[in-house]
């Protein structure tokens, strides 16, 4: 077993002046399950990378203090040695899987360690059993679901038989059922094999019942390091830092964010008729026979398991994808017949990854980009940009480069830059990804308020039930490309069979 001792650990990235980690002292005992949480940009990922030696081995910057495993400083031993003791699972499975076949992916790390092929085969079988995917050896990774891919990523590091497992937001891309599966596997590794776990997440509620210790970070400092039963006794610090609380059931709906009877629609803004879409090289319909109508002023949540067709539906609505069959009508006009550019101001989309939208040199020019393209007059343009920056609390960063901001701030810039066009339909793909509770709530509150005030329409795809309960008037449930429910969120969430079918049970 490997005790880890962290002493006075500080780290500054090469291009930054202020340290991302600031004098951290902590200890991990064998068999611990540590929940590491904190607001977006507090340094959780950086901290995990110092524990497994990626920092300083694969990065520049200035590291002071020590992380000792078995009394050996990880900064002085080769990464190949550290990775046999400490393994790291990353957030997005698509970014960490390297091979085409499952078997090859799991074998990759073992081959790097020089393990003989017969032993590699044994370890592959064991690792697949551990993650509940026995018999998947020869499956193609591209054909697996998001949850299965993350389990393969977990298997590929379990096969290396580490004594410490670090997990960096491992479930942020997964639906509730896949999240539950991953967390159950991690807990089993902890209890059955005694593997020490450090799991970084914003979703405290999902993990708190599994852990025995809680670390809370803020601005590079470890603000709290306590056993679980002591950590949540006083939740003031969590509340102050905007971190999700384990027992928070905030599904109350402020008047400002839910539609009132007085705000009822002024007619249909979106019509989808028998919509079908098939990706090239696929025999399966990503979206199949979907028909629906959305009125002005509605806030609609699109939910369903990973790969159910939520994102594809949003992309079809805004014209990023052309339907294989059926049609999408925005304000009475069929999207197939009109150039994408002509939809500017009618439909706007913010991707799950907001960085795909950020192209300007400053936040101000990013927000200005859309309205300027629509030839808004200069005097109105400046007022519009300033107003949008204020609404989304971006005025302080107006002259900064979007890429220099934190993930939460970048998402706000992406939302603001799309919102500045005042589209009739605003599409938001998985706004919870990488967001802490405070950032998410603040952004959604502002967006929903503005959408309702201006009688616009918001559609957001999410796995987050609380978000839907809090903000959506209506829910669309997708399953295997089909729309299987369209109606009130309350009715949907009371139907156990329905939410089980859409993998929304945790």
């Amino acid at each position: 077993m490997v005790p880890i001792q962290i002493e006075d650990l500080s780290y500054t990235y090469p291009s930054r002046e202020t340290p991302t980690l600031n004098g951290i002292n902590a200890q991990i005992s064998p068999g611990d399950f540590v929940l590491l949480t904190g607001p977006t940009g507090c340094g959780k990922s950086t901290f995990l990378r110092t524990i497994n030696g990626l920092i300083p081995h694969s990065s520049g910057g200035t590291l002071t203090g020590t992380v000792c495993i078995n009394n050996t400083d990880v900064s002085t031993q080769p990464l190949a040695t550290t990775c046999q003791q400490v393994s790291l699972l990353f957030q997005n499975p698509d970014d960490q899987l390297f091979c085409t076949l499952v078997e090859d992916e799991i074998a990759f790390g073992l081959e790097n360690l020089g393990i003989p092929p017969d032993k590699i085969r044994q370890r592959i079988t064991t690792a697949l059993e551990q993650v509940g995917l026995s018999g998947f050896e020869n499956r193609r990774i591209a054909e697996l679901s998001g949850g299965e891919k993350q389990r393969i990523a977990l298997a590929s590091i379990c096969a290396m038989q580490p004594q410490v497992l670090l997990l960096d937001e491992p479930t942020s891309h997964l639906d509730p059922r896949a999240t539950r599966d991953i967390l159950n596997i991690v807990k089993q590794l902890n209890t059955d094999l005694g593997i020490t776990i450090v799991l970084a997440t914003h979703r405290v509620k999902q993990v708190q019942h599994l852990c025995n210790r809680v670390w809370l970070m803020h601005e590079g400092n470890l603000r709290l390091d306590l056993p679980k039963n002591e950590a949540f006794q006083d939740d003031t610090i969590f509340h102050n830092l905007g971190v999700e609380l384990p027992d928070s059931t905030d599904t109350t709906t402020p008047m400002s964010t839910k539609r009132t009877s007085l705000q009822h629609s002024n007619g249909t803004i979106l019509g989808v008729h028998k919509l079908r879409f098939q990706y090239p090289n696929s025999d399966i319909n990503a979206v199949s026979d979907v028909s629906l109508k959305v009125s002005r002023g509605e806030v609609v949540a699109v939910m369903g398991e990973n790969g159910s067709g939520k994102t594809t539906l949003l992309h079809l609505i805004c014209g990023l994808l052309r339907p294989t069959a059926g049609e999408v009508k925005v304000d009475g006009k069929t999207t197939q017949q009109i150039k994408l550019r002509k939809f500017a101001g009618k439909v706007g989309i913010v991707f799950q990854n907001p960085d795909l939208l950020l192209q300007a040199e400053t936040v101000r020019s990013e927000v200005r980009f859309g309205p300027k393209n629509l030839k808004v007059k200069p005097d109105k343009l400046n007022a519009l940009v300033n107003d949008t920056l204020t609404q989304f609390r971006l005025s302080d960063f107006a002259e900064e480069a979007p890429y220099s901001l934190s993930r939460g701030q970048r998402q706000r810039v992406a939302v603001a830059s799309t919102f500045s066009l005042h589209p009739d339909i605003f599409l938001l793909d998985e706004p919870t990804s990488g967001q802490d509770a405070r950032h998410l709530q603040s952004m959604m509150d502002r967006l929903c308020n503005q959408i309702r005030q201006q009688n616009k329409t918001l559609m957001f795809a999410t796995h987050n039930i609380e978000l839907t309960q809090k903000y959506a008037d209506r829910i669309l449930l997708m399953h295997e490309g089909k729309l299987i429910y369209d109606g009130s969120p309350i009715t949907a969430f009371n139907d156990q069979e329905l939410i089980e079918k859409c993998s929304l049970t945790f």
Partner: protein
Amino acid sequence: MFICKSKLESRTKIIIMMIIGCLVILLDSPSALLVCFLASILLVVSSMPTLKQIRLLLIFLFFTTWGLIYSQGIFYNAFPRTVLITLVPVDFPLIGKWTGGIHVYREGLFHGIIQSLRFNSTLVIGCYIVWSTQPRDLLLALSQLRVPGALAFMVTTALHFIPVIASEAAAVIRSQRLRGARYLRFNLFASVRGVVNSFRPILAGNIRHATNLGESVESRGFSPETSMQRTSLRSSQMGRLDYGLIAVLSLCLICVIALKVLYFCYANGIYYGSWLRGLYTFTREIL
């Protein structure tokens, strides 16, 4: 990305690409270059590509062939040259006088055919390697060929991310259009700036993907320094076919180099052997 079947070991594929790359530079005659091109096609066919891959390859080949032949036909500036078609006559107002007329030259077309055969041979082999080799096998092969680790990883990740980059680029461009962006305008400066700005999120995405993947493989013990102690689940020994093919192609390359050197010496008056006249003729006519 769909991986085709191939009986050749990854190192063999890379070595073949290097040999054919050298051959197409050394060879000048269309018939010899056509042999290289057909040999490359044969390799692709042997890997049983999918219909989509065949269609993609044909599109690549069409555009490179057409583009090279057409551009060489117009911009050929060596002499002698024979006008085949006149696109803009010399007496055409302004442009005609300014350019001296725009013509398609027969020698230019011929030169274009040679250049397109050169380019397409390497293009086809490049597609063959990408389509028939797993990223991890390619990485291993490059490491075994003593390519510096960082470079090997860069090449492999670049290939690994081609489909991701393509889909992200499409998403970026379309989402910018949805924000009213116009890429083709009368103002050339604005058009270029628009395109450059669109590259920013694509580039940032690439850097992020590559960084994450790099961290992931390093966290699993991959290191250029330890590549020699690496084992492999699948045996990746070079077989008879690999050695045979490399031997034949290497021999071809050595012979071509030798014949070209002899011909160069003869053509420049450095050395002439009457007993080599047959080889001089062969080199001039066939190579």
